[in-house]
Every structure is written in structure tokens, then in C-alpha cells.
């Protein structure tokens, strides 16, 4: 469903992506792992067209990203940003229901609010959070509101940039289950970035490891532990020495 072919992206002299090849099947859950600053977030943003890639091809459902109707393209996506990126001028429920309050998915305000409260419940937030403003929430709560917003319009393709970072272990478990549920029950295609290995095992069908601007290893999560890729091995066991340098 999503194919990246030899994708390159540099910021000035900083070559971040140097030929990424990756494909994600429809209805599967892909998890991207890799060191901090290797360009995982940049890769997601390239797929969404938020950042223009320099060369290579990004193909979603057979057509190149950036060609065709951009509104229709984006309407299929949901995205949780690493920093939540909530609109701080709007109360929580209007953040969650943003898509449902305007544009082609617009519906009555009361109904939109109901959906928002239901999505908040699914990410473990009580209804009274709905009328607060993002600035009044803790970091982990903001993250979960961002997650609720990403899934509010039941998108077909969902990107989660570090969904469990900053959450307590129980809440992380709730979110992992939620992501799994969205993929298996609603048939969505998910792409998740995470540093948390227990999350990887809970969410992933497939795993891809990004390092040095390329995908070093990709395969089913079941083969992750038996692979003999030294980069992957070092990463999943969190060892300081190995082929990945600690200072990057």
C-alpha cells in the first residue's frame, strides 16, 4: 500500500535519508525503530508530503505522493505528531473533533463532540478533559489527546510518532492495545515509530530498522530476535557497544 523507493532527503549538508526502501502492506502494522536523530520522523513527514523529498519515489496505493487530489489523499490519513502538536487555541474536544467540525467530514457539533469524548475514553481520558485547553494537560495527556485526534475520523492509514513516549507503563499498555485493535478490527494500515521494545512486540507485524539513512533490516516481528543483523541486535538489547556508535 505504501512504497518508498530509494528516497533521499537532506537538510543543507545534513543527509538524513540516503536511499530508503520500504514497503508496507495494506492492513498491516509496521514499526520503525532506530536511533534518535536518524530521520524516522522525517520519513513519515515525507510520506505525508509535509517535507518534500529530494529524490526517489513514494507511492501510496499506486500513485505518487504529491500527484492528484491532495485533500482526498490527506483525508485517508491520521497522524500523531511526536510533540502532539495540539492547537492550543482550541479546547481538547475541538482538537480531537477538528476534522469533524469542518470540511468534507463535517457533522453537527453535538455529534462531533460525542465522538470526541468517545475517542478520548479510548485513549484513557475522562470526559471532563474535553473542555480543558491543551496547555492545562500533562505531556502524557497531550500525547493521548493527539492520539485521539489522529483516530477521530477513522482514517485508513495512521502514523504514530512515538505514541507511548512519556506515558506510564500501564497507559503505554492501553495505547499499545488500542493501536493493535485499530489495525486488527478496523483494518487500518499503521506505521509507528517507537523506541520502546515492548511496544514493538505488542504492536508490530513487521519491523524496519532505520540507520545511517537506510533501512538496515526489515522483516516480520517474529524474526526480529533470530536475525543476525548486528545493528538490530545491538538496538533491541540496548547495548552501548556494537556497530552503532553511541555518539552520533
Amino acid at each position: 500500500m505504501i512504497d518508498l523507493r530509494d528516497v533521499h532527503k537532506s537538510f543543507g549538508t545534513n543527509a538524513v535519508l540516503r536511499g530508503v526502501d520500504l514497503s508496507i502492506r495494506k492492513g498491516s502494522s509496521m514499526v520503525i525503530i532506530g536511533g534518535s536523530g536518524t530521520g524516522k520522523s522525517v520519513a513519515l513527514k515525507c510520506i505525508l508530503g509535509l517535507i518534500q523529498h529530494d529524490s526517489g519515489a513514494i507511492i501510496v496505493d499506486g500513485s505518487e505522493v504529491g500527484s492528484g487530489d491532495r485533500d482526498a489523499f490527506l483525508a485517508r490519513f491520521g497522524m500523531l505528531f511526536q510533540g502532539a502538536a495540539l492547537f492550543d487555541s482550541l479546547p481538547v474536544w475541538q482538537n480531537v473533533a477538528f476534522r469533524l467540525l469542518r470540511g468534507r467530514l463535517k457533522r453537527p457539533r453535538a455529534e462531533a463532540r460525542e465522538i470526541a469524548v468517545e475517542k478520548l475514553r479510548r485513549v484513557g481520558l475522562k470526559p471532563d478533559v474535553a473542555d480543558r485547553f491543551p496547555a492545562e494537560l500533562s505531556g502524557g495527556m497531550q500525547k493521548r489527546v493527539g492520539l485521539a485526534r489522529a483516530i477521530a475520523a477513522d482514517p485508513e492509514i495512521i502514523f504514530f510518532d512515538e505514541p507511548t513516549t512519556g506515558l506510564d507503563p500501564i497507559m503505554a499498555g492501553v495505547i499499545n492495545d488500542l493501536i493493535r485493535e485499530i489495525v486488527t478490527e478496523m483494518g487500518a494500515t499503521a506505521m509507528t515509530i517507537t523506541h520502546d521494545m515492548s511496544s514493538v512486540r505488542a504492536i508490530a507485524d513487521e519491523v524496519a530498522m532505520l540507520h545511517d539513512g537506510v533501512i538496515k533490516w526489515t522483516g516480520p516481528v517474529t524474526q526480529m530476535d533470530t536475525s543476525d543483523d548486528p545493528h538490530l541486535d545491538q538496538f533491541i538489547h540496548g547495548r552501548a557497544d556494537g556497530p552503532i556508535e553511541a555518539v552520533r
Partner: protein
Amino acid sequence: MMATAPLAALGRATLAFLASIGRVALFALDALSHVVRPPFYGREFAIALLNIGWLSLPVVGLTALFTGGALALQIYAGGARFNAEAVVPQIVAIGMVRELGPVLVGLMIAARVTSSIAAEIATMKVTEQIDALVTLSTHPMKYLTAPRVLAAVLVVPALVGVGDVIGIFGGYIVATGSLGFNPAAYLKNTANFLEALDIVSSLAKGAVFGFIAALMGCYFGMTSGRGAQGVGRATKGSVEAAAVLILAANFLLTGIFFSI
């Protein structure tokens, strides 16, 4: 090689300047195209009207009041040198309506509104809120820029009108309170002296200055660099650009309205 280095630097600076003018012009066209195309975000527009118009009233009123008062004092003192003290009402009216009203309101809007628009949008950019808007199928130009620009174009002329009236009133208070002018005669002289063109030019300047102020805030916000530093630079740059462009536009408009 060495001798041409300063020339090359000058050339580069000129090119960079021209390029930035081009970018601003393209941004302005883009903003206008979003103003006239649906969808129209009514709530954003209403908030912009409130912020740019209503909440600017105190600062605009006070600025105009003090300036009108000072103007009356100066004209009286200056006029006394050739026995022309009596022209205070006429010159205050002309000075406020043609020049000081629009310019002062424009500059106050640049200080108050341009800076806040730039800081707000730049912060949204830095915290990925602009990216989030895009992923939620909402065009940032349409959602953020168009309502603010439209609101400013509509509401700044009204502010200028209010500023003109309060400025004249400031002159009136000073003139009748301490310079010994007859209140009724002062008002009559003011009303008889002002022409339709004075008022039209005043309001037209307001519309242009409002456009410049909102546009610069949005442009610098949208093109902000990363981090708190980026927000700071965007805010500073937006106010500088808005103030200079407002003064330049004022010169041009005065030329267009009154010298031909």
C-alpha cells in the same frame, strides 16, 4: 578578484532583496486567492475581527487623543509667529485625517497585531501545529492567513475613522480648554474644512495598512525558523517590515491622492 568582491556582495544582497520581495508578493497573491475561495472559516474571522479591531480600540484611542492635543498646541504656537493662530481647527483636522490618523493607527496595529500574529503563527509552526493542520485537511493559508488579512482590511479603516475623530476631539479639548477657542466655532470650522477626499483617503490608507500589517504577521510567522529563536526573529522581522512598508505605502498613497 579582490577588487570585485564588494561588488559581488552588493549584487548578492540586491538579488536576495529582490527575491524576498518576490516571495512576499507571491505570498500576498496566495493569501488573496484564499480570501476569495471557499471554504470560509467564520469562527476564525470573528476572532480576528475581535483581536484586530475591538481590542485595539483603547490603544488607538489614547494614541489619537494625545496626538491631537499635542498637534493643537504646536499649531497654535507655530501659527502665533505669523498671526495665524486661528487655523488650529483646520490644520488639526487635515493633519489628523490625512496623515496622522492613518499612520499612527497603522503603526499601532503593526506593533500590536502584526507582532502577535507573527508570534502566534511562528509558534504554531515551531510546534508542528501547521503540519498538523495540513494532515487534518485544512489549508494553513485559508485557516490562518485569509481570516486575519480579511479582518484587518475591513476593520483597520474603522479604527482609522475612530482615530481621526478622537484625534480631532483631542485637539478640540486642548483648543477650547486652554487656548480660548469657541467650542461651536471650532467644530463648525473643522466640519466645513474637511472634504470627502480627505476622509476617503484616510479610510483607504487604513485598508492598505491593515492589509500590510496582517500580511506581514502571517508571512513572517509562516516562514519562521525553528525554535524560540526562530519565533523571536519572525516577530521582530514582521514588525520592522510592516512599519517600513506602512510608511512607504503612506507616502505613495498621499502622492496618489493629493498631488494629482
